């Protein structure tokens, strides 16, 4: 087990190195934007001698391989430089923006799993029924419907039209808290919950279908196994067969898919943050693109890569731990 762990970690670090190198190549080598502009804001009118000084200071006059090594060092020590737009260190700003993203994603993921899994189990236990067909339909639907469009529609109907017809702001359309924020901590939490309610609901509506379909398919796979036939032959109730025997064996792939879907969800939440003007990482990245704010872009891409690689690693390891059949490297 330890050997496998070590091997996986080394491979992960290798992949991270490749991604950072790719980052370097994209932004510093083959980029149509000259490298010094990725350090200096484009709109800044700097005298040539100061520009030269800054080139020297940032090491842009060094040969490429020295710059590459410095770039690696900066990235891996989380020294991302100063944001062009806010003029604060990127790391500081990142820590300020993280809570909104974590809150949004954490609550929407938990809600999606809580809604989707039972529906998937229900569909699998009644294969061919109307529930099952509806679940397949909902799953296919998520394939063809952009989540951002669901969000736009919900916003249109439950915020704008609701306000027009009933005169009440049912859901706010922007921000993560009211301005000014309520002083009372409990009132503040309620206010935040009110603000992220619509983003979370729309993410669940857009995501529960595929989740339910996935659970259903895995469970159906499990239900066709021989040990289920054995369990039924023993005279166990259908309930026991479903939950004790079939569902338990679906846990490894489900946990794995949770870990594997986290990065996709996080990058996907970018659009959610954009639509609802939530001050999270995704919105920050999009604002940085429009800047352009190169230190922020490189930092966020790096963090996204770390996250993806980490989640892949966790998924691999969890799979090994949860599924005794593939407990890697362990002799029994």
């Amino acid at each position, binding site marked *: 087990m330890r050997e496998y762990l070590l091997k996986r970690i080394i*491979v992960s670090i290798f*992949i991270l190195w*490749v*991604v950072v190198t*790719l980052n370097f190549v*994209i*932004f510093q080598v083959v*980029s*149509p*934007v000259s490298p010094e502009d990725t350090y200096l804001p484009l709109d800044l009118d700097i005298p040539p001698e100061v520009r030269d000084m800054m080139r020297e200071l940032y090491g842009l006059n060094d040969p490429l391989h020295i710059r590459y090594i410095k770039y690696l060092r900066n990235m891996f020590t989380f020294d991302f430089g100063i944001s062009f737009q806010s003029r604060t260190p990127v790391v500081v700003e990142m820590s300020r923006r993280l809570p909104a993203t974590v809150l949004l994603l954490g609550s929407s993921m938990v809600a999606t799993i809580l809604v989707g899994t039972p529906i998937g189990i229900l569909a699998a236990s009644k294969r061919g029924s109307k529930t099952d067909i509806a679940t397949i339909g909902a799953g*296919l*639907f998520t*394939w*063809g*419907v*952009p989540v*951002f*469009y669901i969000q*736009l*529609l919900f*916003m*249109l109907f439950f915020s*704008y*039209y609701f306000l*027009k017809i009933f005169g009440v702001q049912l859901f706010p*359309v922007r921000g993560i808290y009211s301005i000014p924020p309520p002083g009372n901590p409990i009132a503040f939490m309620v206010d935040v919950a009110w603000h992220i309610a619509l983003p979370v609901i729309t993410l669940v509506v857009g995501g529960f279908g595929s989740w339910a379909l996935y659970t259903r398919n895995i469970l159906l796979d499990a239900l*066709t196994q021989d040990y289920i036939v054995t369990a039924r032959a023993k005279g166990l109730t259908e309930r026991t067969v479903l939950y004790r025997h079939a569902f338990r064996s679906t846990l490894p792939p489900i946990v794995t898919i949770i870990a594997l879907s986290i*990065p*996709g969800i996080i*990058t*996907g939440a*970018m*659009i959610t943050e*954009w*639509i609802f003007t939530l001050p999270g990482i995704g919105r920050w*990245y*999009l604002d940085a*693109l*429009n800047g*352009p704010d190169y230190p922020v*872009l490189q930092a*966020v*891409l790096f963090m*996204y*890569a770390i*996250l*993806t*690689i980490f989640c*892949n690693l966790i998924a691999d390891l969890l799979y090994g731990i949860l599924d005794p059949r593939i407990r890697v490297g362990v002799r029994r």
Partner: protein
Amino acid sequence: MASVFSADARKILLRRISEFWFEFRSKRIGLAGLALMLMYAGVAIFAPYLTPYNPMSQPRLAQAIAMPEWITVFPQFQEYGRTQRNTLNWQIVAGSDYIKNWGTTVDIQYAADNPELVQVALKSHFAYEQLAPNEFYTKFRYEVTNLTDVEYSMTLVLTPPDANGSWVFFKSPTLSAARSQDVTADSKDPLFIKLLGYDLQTNVGNIIFAQRGNYTFTMYLNLRALSGNAEAHILFKEAQIVLLGRVHGILGTDYLAKDIWSHIVWGSRISLIVGLLAAIVGTAIGIFVGVVSGYLGGMTDEVLMRTVDILLCLPLLPLLLALVHLYGRNVYYIVLFIAIFGWQGLARVIRSQTLSIRETPYIESARASGGSGFYIMRRHIVPNIIPVAFASMILAVPGAILFEAALSFLGFGDPRVVTWGMMLQHAFGFGGFSQLAWWWILPPGLAIIGLCLSFVFVGHAFDEIVNPRLRRRR
């Protein structure tokens, strides 16, 4: 393809296709998807015949964010008018001595023997019988030539049907030089609103055209001869008043008063091109990598599969946004980027299939009879994986379409073409929501959903046929 397949192989292929069609026919969802897909293809192909407007260059067709025309069947919108364009036809009121020609083009030839002041006046009527428009504009052109010792000024005045009061639409300073000018008085122009004497927030269209009946434009031209041999030649033409409609066309207009239906129709081309091209290129890469990796094995396999791992670890959307931002918002770059990052899953599936095919006896005998690796891959392996690859390609199309829509929605689409994602971006960013412009927000999204679902349905039906795992136990 003819060189790849021998006559026998072609026969087998044809038989397989007809068998496949036999099975596909029984899948209702697949047939529905196919019908929908053909409908979209038809719209894309016949786009120029489905809409008279070019999506990229359109005159001002109606007011900004005008409702669809058919909304007037509902009683509360019954009075909403369409765009009304009136060419002004001038008649003489005063100064007939100098007017050589009148009608839509007025030709004034003025000459004087001694200093004097003369006023030439023209008028033109037009009828307006609809609910007051929110926007309107007036245009005309004057050309002053052959000018000697004449000072002139002109004033355009509108009188409402009840002749109670009037509005000055245009007033030139006193000029003494020859010049030509196109004059536009636009209800959106702050200077014009100021000239009319209203507050900038005022909807002047609602005030001026509140009455129904015959409106009258009067043009006063003051000519002052400064010496004994004064003369001037004045042409006054192309005058029109356009009262922009509150309703327009099949789906109304957007914030720039562009026809939404034409954008929907032409947008289908871009979506289909992006989806199909990205899926085809991505599938080709996936087949190539999967087959080579699976058949050759060893070091090649290891390198290719680690590349797949790395590509799967890249944060796709942010990276694509950065690439599009750096290399330019070009629709073909977007296709290429989507394709480059969209083949990894397929490559893994193809590789595992190749691995099992590789061990079959007929491959062994092909190898024993001296077939080269490339020959075996092309001749024996690729034909076997084509059904799976094809199903996967069809299922990759909606992904690519949605991705392009998301890019466009975030403002990273190609600005030279109209896409559905971009329409949503505009609706979101330029007041479609606060104005509750459902005719602007709903169509692009529904178009995306319909197109994607058609591919999902067909792909799902395909997958059920070619993928034995999904067949039900009977």
